[in-house]
């Protein structure tokens, strides 16, 4: 039986949007926390820390996010650890996000001129103080546009978890289309919803960029 693409179906898709948002938020928060640690390790003085961090970034970036998802979902369940789809999906996306944010932030930290390290070191600051008061505030300015740009990618990338049957926005569209056969209208709505989330983020990115630059001559 073919159903109409009516209010119930629209509501179903709208409600699925929250899982897209939850997955995005979780993956950015957890992935961001891991990514920050890896970024700091990547520029740390001990060579072992730098190697481990570089290896981590290389592996995560070299593996499709989809494979991370399969590993987290099917791989771990074979190993006896059965994760609920939403948890497996969040974990896989967080790993994926961490590998990229680590690299973006590594680059931002390294863009801060080395003289800033030297000047703050000469003022007897500890390494932590150098990061906290001198380097990270400047790195943040550099990191903001690419980070928000990547976050927009992260929103759209949550759609891959539809494969392990997490009913987020893309999966909901698929399900509704299967019963209504109105792909243009269904996926049109899905696309508009993705856009409605991503576009304000892009706007926010440019506003943040302007505000962080306020008060500076350049």
């Amino acid at each position, binding site marked *: 039986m073919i159903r109409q693409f009516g209010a119930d179906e629209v509501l179903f898709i709208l409600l699925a949007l929250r899982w897209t948002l939850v997955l995005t938020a979780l993956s950015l928060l957890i992935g961001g926390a891991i990514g920050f640690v890896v970024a700091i390790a990547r520029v740390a003085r001990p060579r072992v820390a730098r190697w481990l961090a570089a290896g981590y970034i290389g592996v995560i970036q070299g593996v499709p996010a989809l494979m991370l998802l399969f590993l987290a979902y099917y791989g771990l369940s074979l190993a006896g650890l059965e994760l609920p789809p939403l948890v497996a999906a969040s974990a896989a996306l967080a790993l994926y996000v961490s590998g990229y944010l680590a690299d973006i932030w590594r680059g931002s930290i390294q863009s801060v001129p080395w003289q800033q390290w*030297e*000047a703050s070191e*000469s*003022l007897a600051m*500890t390494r932590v103080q150098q990061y906290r*008061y*001198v380097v990270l505030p400047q790195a943040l300015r550099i990191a903001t546009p690419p980070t928000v740009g990547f976050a927009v990618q992260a929103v759209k990338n949550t759609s891959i978890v539809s494969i392990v049957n997490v009913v987020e926005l893309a999966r909901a569209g698929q399900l509704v289309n299967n019963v209504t056969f109105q792909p243009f209208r269904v996926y049109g709505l899905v696309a508009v919803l993705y856009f409605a989330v991503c576009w304000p983020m892009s706007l926010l990115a440019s506003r943040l960029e302007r505000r962080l630059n306020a008060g500076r001559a350049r």
Partner: protein
Amino acid sequence: MPVVHAEGVVKRYGDAEMLKGVSVSVEAGQVVAIIGRSGSGKSTLLRCLNGLEAIQGGSITVAGHSIDGTGKGLRALRQDVGIVFQSYNLFPHLRVGENIMLAPRIVKGIAKAEARRIADGVLAEVGLSDKFDAYPDNLSGGQQQRVAIARSLAMQPKVMLFDEVTSALDPELTLEVLAVMERMARQGMTMLLVTHEMAFARNVANAVIFMHHGKVWESGDPATLFDAPQTPELRQFLRTE
């Protein structure tokens, strides 16, 4: 007991030996100028004195602190040793006042009101009392360098190191920075400076060190050194400067 005492300092980068056993001594209140060609090791020596460069031989004691290779020891030393760089190296995300108050606040734990009082004092000393709220990028090179000096002074150091601090400035701005340094010297600050300003070295310094090929080639009081150089290398250097 000299404020700065370096004995037989050796610094190598890989196979290149930048300092080949350099000894320097600066008494309290003295101003010592280090001159020499680029590559002679003069900036390297200065950077070794506050531990920015690790040394491979010899010993360094500054303001009663020996460089012992520990982070804690280095930080204790650096609280008493100010350094000003050729490229100012102000913190661009902080206002002038914040640049100056940052280290006294977080390193020494000085209260905000007291830090503000110190900042006002050192800004007045370098003639920039009206720039407390300005961002470094809105200042001229000479003003930025004076803020950098003020930032170091705010830590109330026992000795100040100057690493070619006027080399990036045009002549007029150079004069305003040198005037500040001359006033500091008159007030009794112990200073060790690497410079190309021969007139300043002659008129303000108590002693001049000529470095060549990573060694102290010749040293003495300015009049003798400039008017009666003993080595052909120094004579050659003075002719070209």
